[in-house]
């Protein structure tokens, strides 16, 4: 079986390490990017099997990255799992529902922060 490549995009290096560890344990190959722009570029370059995308990021936020990925032909079909913090849930800065309406399409899955390893693995596997 070919390796499964997952791209993790998060501006918090500790979070990347955490997610990376969880996913590597499951046998996935993990790539990472530390901001939205870099995340989009790496996605186009590497064409991963799935993207784990943080919402709150500088330069380009998760929903903007998601929108670009859907508009770009080569990345259109890549499943995206969003990492949402409590801030997004209560509507400070972002509101997942509103963003969905705004960008039209919905990400394939959401994982709430603080991340539970089991939950992340479950949602990732469901969307591969």
């Amino acid at each position, binding site marked *: 079986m070919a390796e499964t490549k997952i791209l993790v995009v998060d501006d918090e290096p*500790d*979070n990347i*390490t955490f997610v990376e*560890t969880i996913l*590597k344990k499951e046998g996935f190959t993990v790539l990472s990017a530390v901001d939205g722009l870099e995340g989009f570029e790496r996605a186009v370059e590497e064409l991963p099997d799935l993207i784990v995308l943080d919402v709150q990021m500088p330069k380009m936020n998760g929903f903007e990255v998601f929108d670009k990925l859907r508009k770009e032909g080569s990345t259109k079909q890549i499943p995206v799992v969003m990492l949402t913090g409590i801030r997004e849930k*209560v509507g400070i800065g972002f509101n997942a529902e509103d963003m969905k309406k705004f960008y039209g399409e919905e990400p394939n899955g959401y994982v709430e922060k*603080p*991340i539970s*390893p089991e939950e992340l693995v479950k949602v990732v596997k469901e969307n591969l």
Partner: protein
Amino acid sequence: METDEKKMFIECPKCGKRYHTAESNKTYEIVCSCGEKLTVLPWLSYRQSITQPGEVECSVCKREYDLSKYRNKTEIACICGNLLAVNFPDEYDTSSGRRKTDHISEQLQAKLHGLIDTCRLIHFIRDIDKLLLLIVRVTTEMLDAEGCSIILHDKDNRDLVFHSVTGSKSSTLTQFRLAEGEGVAGNVIKSREPLVVNNVEMDSRFSKRADDKSGFSTRNILCIPLMVEGDCIGALELVNKRNEEDFNEEDLFLGEAVSNQIAIAIHNLQLTEAALKAERLAAVGQAVTGVAHCVKNMLNGLDGGLYVLESDIEEKYGKIPERGFEMLGRNIQRLKDLVQDMLTYSKDRMPEYSLTNLNELIESIIDLMKARAREKKVKLTFKPDEAIEDIVVDPKGIYRCVLNLVSNAIDACETEEASVTLYTKTSDSQFVVVEVEDQGSGMDEKTLQSIFQPFFSKKGSKGTGLGLSVTQKIVQEHEGKIEVDSVLNKGSTFTIYLPIKQ
């Protein structure tokens, strides 16, 4: 004009009584006690200077004035509008010409000034102890007494305490305590009626204890209750009218006026303190929320770090040192719980309501707590009412409430084979009831009164003291209520009522 130092009078043409008048450019009226109306005219247009004592007549209306009634450097506003300036050369000593009424009005003035002083003090002095002491000093002088004190009712200690005391024995009497209902003050506080006792020896209500303690010899007492918002908080007590006199009705009136001022001062202080406390709490709440948020994020990082460390060790050595990791994990979880409790308690959380099956929710709590119950040899059972319908609640909030109660219940069980039982019930059609019953240590009355206070804990280092505060807050957010029933050494039952919302 030298009117600043001069006093002006108008004399009643009918009875001869004199009235002190303010300088005026307008026409105004004074009604004399004999019924006569005295019109004070703008007198400054006329002026007649008198430099000889004795009888004199107004140069305008020919009215006669007896100057022996007037002191030097006074002015007489004649009812015709003329101003007679009495201005003798200094060699005429007119002090002998003063009438007794002059003396009385001066006394009254001094008293009124005393009253005005007490009003002023309230606005300028912020320190309540200093203020009350100044007020009793002014009152002592104003009422011509040998001593004065404010005696406050200490409701916690169930006695009376001398708070601000003047007089020769003030230092020994300050903080002296009387029993509730003891002495004249005790009677006044109880009956809420003022009392004048002009011969204490003859009055059974008088208590000699204060005199015995201070060596003072009380002859007579004037005592007035201090009423704040319908509640009697203490009394103002004056002792021994000077010059061997008795306290009279006038003293009583003045004393009542002062006691009202004191009550206002104390009430103001209470309001200010309450406002300050609320402000402080709000500030602390804000700070706690800010700090807790940061700490929470760091804790998630710690949790992640622990996971990464665990994975790396496992990968490298094949197995992980469980003891240490378990310890770290448990303590991170405790910190997380504390932070979560603090956040829930200190700010307005946004409950997320959804239709919830309460029985299922409680089952999941039982599953979680089974291990701990087993460890403590506590029998944990759930007796659900299968008929209850799904209700709209914030499931995470209610989960937290019930988990807190179950966790407390298990902790309270000290004997082996004690049991903790959970029930769900319907109480009429308005509430769904969750009951957590334990056969633990129970609580006494004093503990029961404090359990919902934040940071109150009987668990030592194990508890944060926030569990029940948070539980209560969440229940209140649901517009529900929480009740406790507890018997020492028998056990406790906590009952949560959750309204069924349409």
